[in-house]
């Protein structure tokens, strides 16, 4: 199979998948996005699904805050520079890379 016919086959399959996937708007599930959503879901217990929080809660809503601010705060909790009742203990459970991914995720959510 030459390059062109491989591409054509792949395109054909892809279009078939798209057609079957619905009459619709369903989006493909991206593996890395799935992992990031999964990681961010560990924050939802206190900060709400997708960081949306609850009305008049005592913990901040994270959705829509800037990534720089979120990352700086989480790192400050982790280092102990920012005091807390519990957040410093939780922030220490995540790598700097994970904190960065979480900051980007919550920054991209609609408040």
């Amino acid at each position, binding site marked *: 199979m030459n390059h062109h016919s491989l591409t054509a086959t792949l395109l054909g399959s892809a279009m078939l998948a798209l057609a079957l996937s619905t009459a619709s708007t*369903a989006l493909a599930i991206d593996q890395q996005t799935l992992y990031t959503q*999964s990681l961010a879901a*560990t924050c939802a*217990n206190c900060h709400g699904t997708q960081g949306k929080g609850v009305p008049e809660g005592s913990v901040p809503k994270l959705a829509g805050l800037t990534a720089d601010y979120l990352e700086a705060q989480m790192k400050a909790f982790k280092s102990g520079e920012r005091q807390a009742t*519990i957040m410093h203990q939780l922030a220490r459970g995540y790598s700097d890379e994970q904190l960065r991914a979480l900051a980007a995720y919550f920054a991209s959510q609609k408040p």
Partner: protein
Amino acid sequence: MDRRDFLKAGAALTLLSGTASAFAMRGAKVVVIGGGYGGATAAKYIRLLSGYTLDVTLVEPDKEFVSCPLSNLVLGGSRKLTDISRSYATLSRHHGITMVHDLAASIDTRARIVKLAGGSTLSYDKLVLSPGIDLNMGSIEGLAESQASGQILQAWKAGPETLALRRQLEAMPDGGVYAIAIPEAPFRCPPGPYERACQVAWYLKNFKPKSKVLVLDANQDIVSKPALFKKVWEEQYKSIIEYRNQHKAMAVSPKDGLIKFDVQDDVKANVINALPQMRAGKIALQTGLANMANNRWCGVNYQSFESSVANDVFVIGDAIQVAQLMPKSGHMANNHAKVAAAAVVAQLSGLDINPAPMLTNTCYSYVDDRHVIHVASVHEYVAAEQTFKVVQGSGGFSTGPTELEGRHANTWARSIWADMLE
């Protein structure tokens, strides 16, 4: 187009886009059994993470969710049962989940069919089982009869029994004795019995100050937050709470108000709250999924929470054989659910299961109506050992009970209920 072709098409898309992505197998059926902290969360997150493409049915007999966390406050009298109850209607409406208010009677894991007590059946491609615990009433002689007659209660599943135990406390004379018997760990909610002792003591201190709370523990020491509970008991409830370790309840006799132990002397009390040994919920035992610790708990592959004995069945929450330092808590069940949900979505989309899932745990305990203490931890999946471990340096305890943590605990409850039910 069958499933294999579908996955091939998905893989083709992946090649085209250069990053792994795929469509979830449209119309694939996921059945979730149990609408507690684990099951309700799993149902919602499977819908959410699949971009609302997978079909999810949640099987739960009760019309309303009643939270075990905070239910000790109903015993203490600072909350009502309605404060800790929520409808399932919002979950169903917001996320397009089919609610079936029925009891799962049996599961055929080969044919992939769930039979309901009402007579109908549900077929599934993936099953998430969050059955909670079963109280092993046979582990304490006389307990089954005295529970059936309403004389000795557990109230370890929040609901009408919580109110019945509260009525027993209200009927107790000043100068009476409330005794809670705690089984050997592991059991649902490690700090629960000790928080309950605080709540009952808080009520008695305010209304019946000559009364006593006896904490009769089968364990060597307080199972959760020992230093904090001891501090609170010393400072707030010194004349009320008495703690006795190594008291393993063997029998109860409601007519004499007696609890009998394996070694220690009998204890007499006006209100006996005897907790027996616990094990995975009945449906898990009956399906043969409880393959660990003498058929008490369900073994799972921790990376996905898929059962170690049945393919396409994911077991989450209190029913599982826990990894090291993993408590049987509502928060933990909610986190199991999210890992399992992501794994179900990945499998049904032909994607790889997350190689490095994470879990958090937070257990808040109310020591009176407003002051709260916590224990927290973060757990990471360690692939080399195929288990979850607490991330080194993470987690910890409160320094002492505070009102601020009381506000956080209240926010935690409202947030996690919204996370699972809204």
